[in-house]
């Protein structure tokens, strides 16, 4: 901006630039600009580093790495399918539970609760988001896993429904999904709440004036209005769930196979990296883990890019 203005006055430009330099404007500009570049560079370097650090894997296995189910460090056979499967299953199951729960909370906070209650509850939900992942894992090992083993899993297995058979280990896909559910609910609540609050008041008043009940107003007017933003919140939560490491590592069971039952043990991408990275003895093994990280990185990047775009579109259209 400043430089184009200067370019018009070619003669004065040089002295002006020098005087600006002396006054510190250009220094401040260049300094902050350099650090902005650093941020961009780091983001780009992620992509490059993760890809470039796993050449043997891409050379030897190619895209087969993505759908091969064998993971055998001793035989140097590496396929990431069991981990991709585990990550996707646990994340989607968690979303299935967390979306109704989180949107429900957001509706209660924006449409129903008095302002004080709403603000206090929002604070508590934010604090829930601040609980470290490893503490969720700690509590899940002590409380949720035994409860699943003795009560929930036998009951589910007794129903005879598909994907719910087999012995009750306590750990497994379902347990990991439940922990993930509570970990992502705060994100869904806080973004949905913001999106719902951006819905114009007139929309609600018009519906209520026509005789709608509060619920009908919410369901038919407010939610459709905020639809895109809520989808954005869901994608954002999905991104979180995909990359969640510690709590999942502690309760998913860590078995590198594609399980046939949701009650059985499995593995996720983040968990296999956390468990095997420091124990990898061969170069191929280490590179295979980095390659898993690359796949995870690309997946979360895509999900987050979509999420941010959706949230941007809704909050902007609501404002104008």
């Amino acid at each position, binding site marked *: 901006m400043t430089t184009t203005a200067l370019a018009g006055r070619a003669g004065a430009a040089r002295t002006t630039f020098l005087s600006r330099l002396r006054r*510190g404007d250009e220094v401040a500009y260049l300094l902050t600009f350099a650090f902005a570049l650093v941020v961009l560079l780091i983001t780009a370097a992620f992509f490059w580093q993760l890809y470039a650090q796993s050449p043997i894997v891409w050379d030897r296995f190619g895209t087969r790495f993505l759908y091969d189910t064998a993971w055998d460090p001793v035989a140097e056979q590496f396929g990431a399918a069991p981990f991709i499967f585990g990550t996707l299953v646990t994340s989607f199951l968690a979303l299935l539970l967390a979306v109704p729960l989180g949107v429900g909370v957001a509706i209660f906070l924006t449409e129903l609760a008095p302002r004080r209650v709403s603000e206090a509850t929002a604070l508590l939900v934010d604090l829930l988001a601040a609980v470290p992942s490893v*503490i969720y894992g700690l509590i899940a090992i002590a409380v949720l896993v035994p409860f699943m083993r003795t009560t929930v899993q036998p009951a589910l297995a007794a129903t005879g429904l598909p994907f719910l058979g087999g012995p009750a280990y306590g750990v497994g896909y379902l347990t990991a999904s439940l922990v993930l559910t509570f970990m992502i609910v705060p994100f869904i609540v806080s973004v949905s709440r913001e999106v719902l609050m951006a819905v114009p008041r007139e929309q609600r008043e018009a519906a209520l004036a026509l005789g709608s009940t509060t619920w009908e107003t919410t369901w038919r007017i407010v939610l459709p209005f905020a639809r895109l933003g809520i989808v954005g919140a869901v994608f954002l939560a999905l991104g979180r769930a995909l990359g969640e490491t510690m709590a999942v590592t502690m309760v998913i069971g860590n078995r590198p196979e594609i399980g046939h039952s949701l009650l059985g043990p499995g593995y996720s991408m983040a968990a296999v990296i956390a468990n095997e990275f420091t124990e990898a003895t061969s170069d191929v093994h280490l590179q295979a883990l980095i390659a898993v990280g690359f796949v995870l990185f690309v997946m979360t990047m895509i999900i987050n890019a979509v999420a941010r775009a959706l949230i941007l579109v809704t909050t902007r259209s609501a404002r104008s």
Partner: protein
Amino acid sequence: MASAEARRMRRRVANAAMLGLTAAATVLTVSVLFFILGYLVYQGGSSVSLSFFTELPKPVGEAGGGMANAIVGSGKLLLIATLTGVPIGFLAGVYVAEFASPVPAFVLRYATDLLNGVPSIVVGIFVYALIVLPMKQFSTVAGGVALGIIMIPIALRSTEEYLRSVPKSLREASLALGASRATTIVRVIVPAASGGIVTALMLNLARVAGETAPLLFTALNNRFWSRGWLDPTASLPVMIFTYAIAPYPDWHRQAWAAGLVLLGLVLVTNIGARWLLARRRRAGA
């Protein structure tokens, strides 16, 4: 007539039922927080003692011992994280708020949001390739840089947000007095926004203090004191993880104590930061 009455009844019941469900969802979600807090106090309360804060971990089988090295280690990691992540985030945030034209600002903001979404374990791999491999050793510095990278996005976005919220009149007054833009930023705008930026820094620290995944193969772990900055170091979250999955009851007790201390620090920092923010808002209004 009767059917209209029935219909109204049905609508009322649906209304009450669905709104009741949203209330139930809220109660459930909030009770999870209280359950976590209560359970940690119940399990860890009796294990938090003076020796927890002052002693090194004991070998397996020996009772007692503490996590003094992990507490100091976490502090050192957070210090490095703050020194690396916050200046980058802060200065880039100043650029976005004060200098950037719309397109670069948008690009940078979007890149920052993406960086914010990178799974923390992937940050660990990145720093492993960037620092641990070339230096051929796990180190406190590597762990700190990993946490620092995680701090950048929030430091940037909060700086930008609080700089933008400084009233235009302040800025114009400074410029009208003949101050340059740089002087205005350094002497007027940043001081006016400093309260908010510091609060955001507290929240940011509370967030990375609990991060475990990026430390697993950067700072690694250590059962002894970590000398200097180039040795592997213990940290509270990694200790909790190691102790929680180990088969020794005595380690589990220590894990609960560490969990209680960590969560206590995180929540107190969080509540403190929000309280400061609310007080400033009230004072400003």
